């Protein structure tokens, strides 16, 4: 377990940055609710991992990988987004997860507790966040083009299906990393809200990415600070901090 606040802040900052950056595409893709629902899938995975005495992050990641392959497949096969199916599938996994997660671990799995992160998990989270940010930067142009128009993207030879898969895989990964400190119920929020705030005040895509990442980092860092200072559970505080930025940017947009 990490008792050094500075390292905790570093872990939170990196995961927040990756979540904000990834979220910027999810908001434009109009997949916000999918991101949110996706985070619920982590719960049964974590429960099974805890039962097998493995790392909950690993369990979450495996469960999420299965889920994103499912979403990717549905997105590819259907012209209409099968929202209802996704909704049913995810609430099922949440219900199952709550049932099979041992009672003492449940609250932590649902709302996160960053202080329970081990040093190895922390370093891994930082490392993977950096990898994710680099990867997403590489595919960002293709992703945006695919969001504007699949036809245009295809006409320039972009393999949309591959790009979407890489993207969803990264979302699964960031959610798995984030569940430990904001919890499965709230990780979706850390992906969506910083980007939604950034969209309120950005006119160019460069600014939009920048503010998504910035709000991701600041929400995580300020949230973790407040949570550790007052001994709150980290998840709700991080999310409330990001909501605070959303309200500020929303009002700024209205006033401008």
């Amino acid at each position, binding site marked *: 377990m990490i008792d050094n606040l500075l390292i905790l802040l570093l872990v939170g900052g990196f995961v927040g940055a990756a979540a904000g950056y990834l979220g910027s595409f999810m908001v434009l893709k109009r997949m916000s609710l999918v991101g949110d629902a996706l985070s619920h899938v982590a719960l049964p995975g974590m429960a099974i991992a805890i039962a097998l005495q493995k790392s909950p992050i690993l369990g979450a990641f495996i469960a999420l990988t299965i889920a994103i392959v499912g979403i990717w497949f549905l997105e590819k096969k259907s012209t209409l987004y099968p929202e209802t199916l996704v909704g049913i599938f995810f609430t099922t996994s949440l219900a199952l997860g709550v049932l099979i997660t041992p009672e003492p671990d449940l609250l932590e799995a649902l709302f996160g507790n960053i202080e329970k992160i081990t040093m190895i998990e922390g370093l891994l989270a930082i490392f993977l966040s950096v990898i994710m940010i680099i990867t997403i930067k590489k595919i960002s142009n293709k992703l*945006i083009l695919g969001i504007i128009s699949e036809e245009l993207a295809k006409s320039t030879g972009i393999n949309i299906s591959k790009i979407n898969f890489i993207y969803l895989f990264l979302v699964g990964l960031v959610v798995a990393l984030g569940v430990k400190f904001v919890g499965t119920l709230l990780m979706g929020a850390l992906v969506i809200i910083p980007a939604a705030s950034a*969209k309120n005040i*950005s*006119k*160019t*895509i460069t600014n939009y990415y920048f503010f998504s990442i910035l709000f991701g980092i600041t929400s995580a860092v300020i949230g973790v600070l407040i949570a550790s200072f007052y001994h709150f559970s980290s998840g709700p505080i991080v999310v409330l901090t990001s909501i605070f930025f959303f309200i500020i940017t929303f009002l700024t947009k209205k006033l401008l």
Partner: protein
Amino acid sequence: MEDILLKVTNLKVKYGQNSILNNVSFDVKEDETLAIIGPNGAGKTVLFRALLGLIPYEGKIEWKAGLKIGYVPQKLFIEPDLPLTTQEFFNLKEKNKKEVENVLLLVGFKKDSTDKNHIINQILKRKIGVLSGGELQRVLIAWALLGHPDILLFDEPTTGIDISTEETIYGLLHKLQEKEKLTIMLISHELQVVYNYATNVICLNKEKVCIGPPREVLDKESLAKIFGGHVGIYLHDHHEL
């Protein structure tokens, strides 16, 4: 032998039980302008979508290897909120500012003009989602022309959009044909346009009804077969559709 850029053999597209395209075969040769005409619901846009590999189909679509395709969609709904400037939209495909400026000049934007909406720098600074219909249409054509495509697939814009006061979209296409030596595939409702600009025409009504140079194949009989009955209207008042 002329260079064949695209060969389509027995193309079939179905949505569930409904057959949208049936047994369509044709070739596209280098430097030709091939117009695709037919009534609403004849499968013209579906044909383009199949050519781009966006929808499942039966039959064969063979592009010449390494061919660069430029595609101009019929319409594109971009939410005004999208945080993306026109400059950034071009940068998704090409970072070189000079190249972007060149294609914008080609489609009729100016370096300076009395109307600021026609000035390249003004257009590039604005969000892509707030451009007018005509501006967006020209931007999309410019975007398709970036990177010097070998063939341009052009889905007709909604009739009624004039790209600027002095120029129609077809006049522009004609200019591009001459300047850039482009092979063009064009979907059009307007027979007048087809007569004026196309070297060959495919008449489509789920099946290929005719193919050949417009003045040879667009006789009363085949037109009646495509559009059904009252043909004269389309020739005399080509804004009707």
